[in-house]
């Protein structure tokens, strides 16, 4: 088990709703962005003397631009239905991590400056001035929300705390209080093209390396093309897919599927990133600017279709926002939705029968599937509601013999966040990440014990990175996390692939 300088939650038999422990996470404050990071995104470098005034102005502006914010500020009845729904509350016991209490950090300021009751009877309605103390709470607790929307499913009015934490982060950015992790990464996307800051030549190298690996393993020349003009399909995938484990095994899988389907495809060095951290900081403009990279790449390369790789929030931006932010897509082939998810493509090929699948290749595993929160609660796949649950499972079951679901109240629309989404995947928030993963870890443990599950598949770059990092704290092994297309890759027998009885030695020679 990994060592921690904080208490790792125990995985009890039943998921208990803890008693509140006020202030339990008050100490955890993610690193603030340096002035140059904020400025690169068009925000002031640092807090000014009159930040309070600026913040209230910004809030007024946001209230006029976002119906969600305006309606949600007014509509909460403090029923408490959401209080036990957030993985961060369950894992940390800090009452300010209860969705409604997180919203209240903004609501009390909203009431003070924008409502009759709060202006004249602040105590009565729980309104307060926007003090430094309140701002500190905002910074801490709006960066302890992974914007997973689990609370929104269970709220009778659909109040979505993610909308509120996004708005809060935008307001903080507008007064010069940005967080380092997200803002630095967005800067990298603008400067270099992806979150990891991998320049074009490095990408090329990596992709060549992948081609060699696949050739060595299969004897088939599967291509991983970059910047190929005139290709039919543009694949946009999270940059973690280029080298992180188990992400890269997924990328290998996409390439094999495209190869077998016989389609022409390419990636782009200009849009070498599916992730869009503009969403995490609630900044429409930054999110739009990042999305426009995909449009430019599609136009420059002259592709007909766009497909996104495995990534949760990237799929949200792609599925739900891309048409708004970078459309209209009238120059693409109208026979396909824009964009498509790689799983929609792969399932289509499986159903058409173009893929030669040997399920037994995955017989060393008993699998379960983690529904990524953004995919589950903010997007769809296919043409029916809920396709986002069925399509990944259909693909997994088509390539694996052993599959079981985790308990019903922890999957699909009720899925628990991995604990690292929403711009929190940074080492300085490790305590939060480990504690927030507890409900998912508990669910995984239950199927491990009951059904002998050995591996958990995920379709999100953040989920995969987060799980491989935190799972050891709970006594699991990081190799237990796999990409869905890694499973596809394992089971997919390419045309002309070396037959199995060739011994390992010859493979090693080639390598």
């Amino acid at each position, binding site marked *: 088990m990994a060592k921690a300088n904080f208490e790792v939650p125990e995985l009890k038999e039943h998921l208990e*709703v803890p*008693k*509140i422990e006020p202030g339990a996470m008050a100490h955890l404050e993610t690193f603030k962005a340096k002035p140059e990071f904020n400025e690169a995104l068009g925000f002031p470098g640092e807090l000014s003397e009159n930040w309070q005034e600026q913040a209230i102005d910004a809030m007024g502006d946001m*209230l*006029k631009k*976002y*119906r*969600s914010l*305006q*309606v949600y500020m*007014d*509509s*909460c009845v*403090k*029923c*408490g*239905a959401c*209080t*036990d*729904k957030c993985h961060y509350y369950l894992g940390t016991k800090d*009452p300010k991590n*209860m969705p409604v209490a997180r919203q*209240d950090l903004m609501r009390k300021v909203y009431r003070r400056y924008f*409502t*009759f*009751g709060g202006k004249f009877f602040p*105590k*009565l*309605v*729980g309104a307060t001035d926007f003090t430094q103390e309140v701002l500190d709470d905002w910074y801490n607790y709006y960066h302890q929300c992974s914007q997973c*929307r689990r609370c*929104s499913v*269970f*709220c*009778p*009015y*659909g*109040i*979505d705390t993610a*909308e509120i934490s996004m708005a809060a982060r935008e307001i903080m950015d507008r007064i010069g209080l940005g967080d380092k992790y997200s803002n630095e990464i967005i800067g990298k996307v603008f400067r270099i093209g992806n979150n990891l800051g991998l320049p074009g030549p490095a990408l090329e190298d990596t992709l060549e390396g992948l081609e060699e690996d696949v050739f060595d393993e299969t004897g088939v020349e599967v291509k991983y093309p970059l910047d190929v003009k005139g290709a039919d399909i543009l694949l946009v995938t999270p940059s973690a897919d280029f080298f992180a484990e188990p992400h890269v095994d997924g990328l290998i899988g996409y390439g094999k599927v495209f190869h077998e389907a016989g389609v022409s495809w390419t990636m782009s060095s200009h849009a070498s990133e599916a992730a869009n951290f503009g969403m995490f900081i609630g900044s*429409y403009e930054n999110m*739009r600017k990042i999305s426009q990279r995909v449009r430019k790449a599609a136009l420059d390369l002259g592709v007909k279709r766009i497909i996104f790789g495995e990534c949760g929030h990237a799929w949200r931006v792609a599925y*739900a*926002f891309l*048409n*708004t932010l970078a459309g*209209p897509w009238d120059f693409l082939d109208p026979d396909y*939705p*824009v*964009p498509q998810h790689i799983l929609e493509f792969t399932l289509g090929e499986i159903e058409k029968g173009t893929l030669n699948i040997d399920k037994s290749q995955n017989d060393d595993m008993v699998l379960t599937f983690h529904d990524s929160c953004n995919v*589950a*609660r*903010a*997007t*769809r796949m296919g043409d*029916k*509601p809920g396709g*986002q*649950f069925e399509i990944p499972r259909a693909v997994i079951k088509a390539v694996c013999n052993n599959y079981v679901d985790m308990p019903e109240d922890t999957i699909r*629309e009720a899925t628990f966040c991995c604990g690292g989404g929403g711009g929190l995947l940074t080492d300085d928030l490790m305590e939060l990440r480990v504690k927030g993963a507890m409900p998912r870890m508990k669910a995984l443990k239950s199927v491990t014990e009951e059904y002998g599950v050995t591996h958990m598949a995920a379709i999100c770059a953040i989920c995969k990175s987060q799980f491989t990092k935190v799972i050891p704290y709970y006594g699991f092994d990081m190799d237990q996390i796999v990409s869905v297309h890694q499973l596809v890759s394992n089971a997919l027998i390419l045309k002309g692939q070396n037959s199995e009885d060739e011994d390992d030695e010859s493979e090693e020679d080639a390598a």
Partner: protein
Amino acid sequence: MSLAITVLFYLATVILIAGLAYRIWVYAKVPAPLKIATTPAPVTKGGVVLRMFREVAFFESLFKSNKLLWLLGVLFHFGLLLVLLRHLRYFINPVPTVIELIQPFGKYAAFAMIIGLLGLWARRFIIDRVRYITAPSDHLILALLVLIGISGASMTFVSHTDIVGLKNFTMGLLTFDPKPLPSDPLLAIHLFLVSVLMIIFPYSKLLHGVGVFFSPTRNQVDNPREKRHLADWARKFEENS
């Protein structure tokens, strides 16, 4: 007394209607710039109407969330609904048969309403998480509703009020031809509290009754790939790119 209640009632009605109209106008005017339906969501408008209906008629999300809270919420809201329907007999002449038929149910619905309210109130003391998020105004609104319920039910079950005189009074209100209110302290208290409730309605969390219809996570059609969605304020970005 009669005059004071008459004036207050008119004032409360104006504030309620004007306040609600203003809030609805604000909500309708603010755009939702992005598609944020909580999925799985309906892919057609008809589907959204159904989803909203299930939400308002059955409290679907609350049911998923917490069965006891759901039960208390249902007892209170549907109790209140029946009680309100029953009250229509004071405002319509002659009383329609449906309203006549509801009367016996409406009478006892008052108890459902009060029990629901007391249960909801108890949660604010018993459950530490709910206690934490409760503000004084939450207690006051509950107190107000409970008192309205008790004062109203007392007039049915404890000391009958002068129904004929009351109907005379309410019809007078409706026709702007004020008639005296029967002198009954319970009735005066009841009407006073109801007026207060009407006045705070547009300025308090009671707005959830309106807000739910405007909630983008619930009222949006899940069709972002098929149909481009663009807010007016976001159009300016289109021009400079």
